[in-house]
């Protein structure tokens, strides 16, 4: 039984887009952001509505090739194309980018050249070593973003609103972390695909709506867990199935890029992820021991690093920690074609992790879908054989 039905997700999404249209017609600004490093708290505190734009498909990617070369990142191309096709993208009054990888840092210029939208570009040092000058510089950039956004919305800045936003998003992150931990159980209480859908809803809905939804989901999980403990075999849950436990890691996995997930879940449990649209989006809490802007700067600067950051050793540490905690047997390493930061790490990652890794490279085209299915099936089968041989579970 799904913890959240597809129809419920679809309804929430549809209603939210309608709501955004209405709010926007009343004068409030909708600000789109792309990346996990954008501090949505500042967007909210500036009086705008922040929505993450993390959708991509092949058609929009092809449309993006009007502006970028074919060998550009498929996600970046798709972002450009989505402004032609996706109602959510068309609702945005401004965009916030953080320069992360080279492709992403050049995207604002491409968007700016094609769309008449205010674009804010925030410079986050690529270097992840938390030296004081780097965090101070990032804080200065956030102050510039704050000023730019308040100009856009016409609202006066108020630190109390920022504190409220921090509390709201801290709660959202805490709830998502709690829900995600339900993947740890044997068998998992929640599917990997559901986690990704819930995370995607959390960046689309208003903070209040997101908190309500996540609280509700959390309660459903508690109830399920309780029933599982009290009943040997729950008719709703079915018999416990100990399927291979896999992790998915790699480049951004967008909301509508679900084919690999579906293939995996047909035979295995996705018990962990290392994705910016998954755990890296909600891990951690902003600690308010300094001024709120400095606290935000420190939090985002120190997030579990995307592979593009230098050095990115903490990414590997986090991967290894998840593998241990969640008893992961194999990793699906899914990268986007021409996504250098993630593709270049594949070989090293394979050596470091010491468990089977399946590398998949894609561009949303689905051209190799059947080949992919065979590879995934073979991979999972191998993990199953390992599981039997090791007498695990």
């Amino acid at each position: 039984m799904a913890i959240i039905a597809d129809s419920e997700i679809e309804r929430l999404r549809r209603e939210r887009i309608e709501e955004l249209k209405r709010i926007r017609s009343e004068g409030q600004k909708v600000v789109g952001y792309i990346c996990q490093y954008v501090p949505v708290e500042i967007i909210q505190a500036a009086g705008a509505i922040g929505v993450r734009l993390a959708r991509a498909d092949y058609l929009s990617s092809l449309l993006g090739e009007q502006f970028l070369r074919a060998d550009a990142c498929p996600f970046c191309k798709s972002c450009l194309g989505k402004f032609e096709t996706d109602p959510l993208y068309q609702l945005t009054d401004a965009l916030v980018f953080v320069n992360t990888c080279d492709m992403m840092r050049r995207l604002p210029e491409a968007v700016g050249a094609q769309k008449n939208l205010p674009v804010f570009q925030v410079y986050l040092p690529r270097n992840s070593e938390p030296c004081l000058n780097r965090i101070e510089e990032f804080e200065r950039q956030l102050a510039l973003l704050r000023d730019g956004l308040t100009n856009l919305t016409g609202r006066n800045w108020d630190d109390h609103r920022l504190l409220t936003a921090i509390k709201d998003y801290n709660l959202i992150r805490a709830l998502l972390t709690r829900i995600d931990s339900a993947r740890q159980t044997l068998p998992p209480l929640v599917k990997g695909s559901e986690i990704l859908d819930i995370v995607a809803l959390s960046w689309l809905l208003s903070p209040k709506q997101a908190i309500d939804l996540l609280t509700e989901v959390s309660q459903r999980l508690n109830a399920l867990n309780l029933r599982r403990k009290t009943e040997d075999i729950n008719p709703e849950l079915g018999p416990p199935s100990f399927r291979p436990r896999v992790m998915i890691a790699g480049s951004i996995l967008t909301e509508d890029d679900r084919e690999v997930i579906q293939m995996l879940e047909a035979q295995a449990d996705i018990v962990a992820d290392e994705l910016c649209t998954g755990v890296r989006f909600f891990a951690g809490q902003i600690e308010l021991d300094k001024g709120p802007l400095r606290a935000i700067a420190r939090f985002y600067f120190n997030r579990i690093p995307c592979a593009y950051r230098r050095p990115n050793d903490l990414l590997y540490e986090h991967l290894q920690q998840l593998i241990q905690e969640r008893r992961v047997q194999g990793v699906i390493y899914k990268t986007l074609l021409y996504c250098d930061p993630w593709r270049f790490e594949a070989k090293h990652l394979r050596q470091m992790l010491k468990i089977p890794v399946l590398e998949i490279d894609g561009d949303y085209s689905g051209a190799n879908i059947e080949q992919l299915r065979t590879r995934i099936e073979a991979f999972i089968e191998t993990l199953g054989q390992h599981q039997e041989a090791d007498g695990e579970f």
Partner: protein
Amino acid sequence: MSYQDPQPARITFEQWDELFARIPDELIDRFHYFPPNSFSWSKYLFPPQTFAIYGARHLRRLKFDNSLASLRLWGFVNNESERLFRARQMGKRVIAVMGDLGPLAVIVNSFPDCIPFYPDCWWWTPFAMESKVLLDAAASLGIGEATCFSRAALGAFAKHSYFPDPDLILAATGASCDDYSGVESLVAKLTGRVKWVETPLRLSGQNEQLIRFLVAEYHRVVSALEDLTGTRLTGTMLKDGIRRANRVRHLTSRLRQLAYQHGVLPALETMMVEFGCLHYYSDITEWTAILEHLLSTAEFRLKNGLLVLNPESLRIAWLTPPADPLLLCFVEDHNARLVATEYVINQALSIIDESLPGLAGIARTTLAGSLNGTSAQRAELLITQARTNQAEGVIVSGILGGSHCAMESKLIAQHIKQRHNIPILEFDVAPPAKEVDRQTRTRIEAFLEVLRSRRCQKS
């Protein structure tokens, strides 16, 4: 001892061999790297054939300027690997500087007996050697095809035979391409010892704050070098390092002007002059002497109307350095010449403001970097020169899968069309081979034909 340059011309590999026989031995003995050392092992004035025997097979297909100064340049550039190993033997510190293309080498060079070099420049090696050995080595470490040829640097680190294992690796990242940042990341994993330096974006109206930020980064570099060498960097040492770097940059600027405005030096040699601003081919003193020699040759040629390129040839602006140097020869063989370039190293060509505190002056040039700003700004760097020198067309040589090429090529082309309205040819440089691939050849020929017909129409 008398030797006079022949009538300026672009000559072949074989012709250089014949010409070399006429150069007196005394003259050959005069040039040594790491002067004032004069040991016989430090001679470098050899004909291209010497380096072809040692593996630089592509030299057989290039055309060279026939001046003694250019021969000096070729010998010196081709000799760099040997020079770096010698530096180690002589007790000098060999410092790999990666990614920032220019500014960090100025700091390193301010320390006594520290030799900076850019592994980045090994991207030419697969082409020079007509070999994929370094690219294959990079692939075995995780960086395969459809990536910038700069991945050869990773292969060179893995092979341990192209340069000595550095005493320190400084890796700049930030406003850099993903390809090279990936190379740096894997070098860090391979060697386990990299000092990271952040290079920020150039953001409108924020120069002073970003300079302060960069100065803090550079202080960490200085500390690392002080720890390594046991020498404290004084203001005077840094000023002296900057002055020497500026001397190279001034000479380069004048040479570019003479080459691109008057055609007194071919594009290939001029490109090598430009890239000498990165790290002076690991020996700033001798490199400066070579530039002075080249400049006196160029000025002599101009004064006496002895041009190496036809002044009536088509005038081309070139964006992004071609990994295959044969492309530059190919264009010149087709009666065209370069009059403007943007080789992603503007930070190394910009003069450092000596009135500023040392590190701040260097930081300012870092922010002038070609890749630190927007694509439109980069296009403007080329357009300014192209207008001055009346370029008739722009060639953009890209790299398949290179992150900045993929993202900015169309933007730059669009910008140039809007602002300058001259034809643009864009192509990706093919992997190392013995000749320019047929498709690229046809496209360049067709492009030059278009420019020719446009010129006819105008006249």
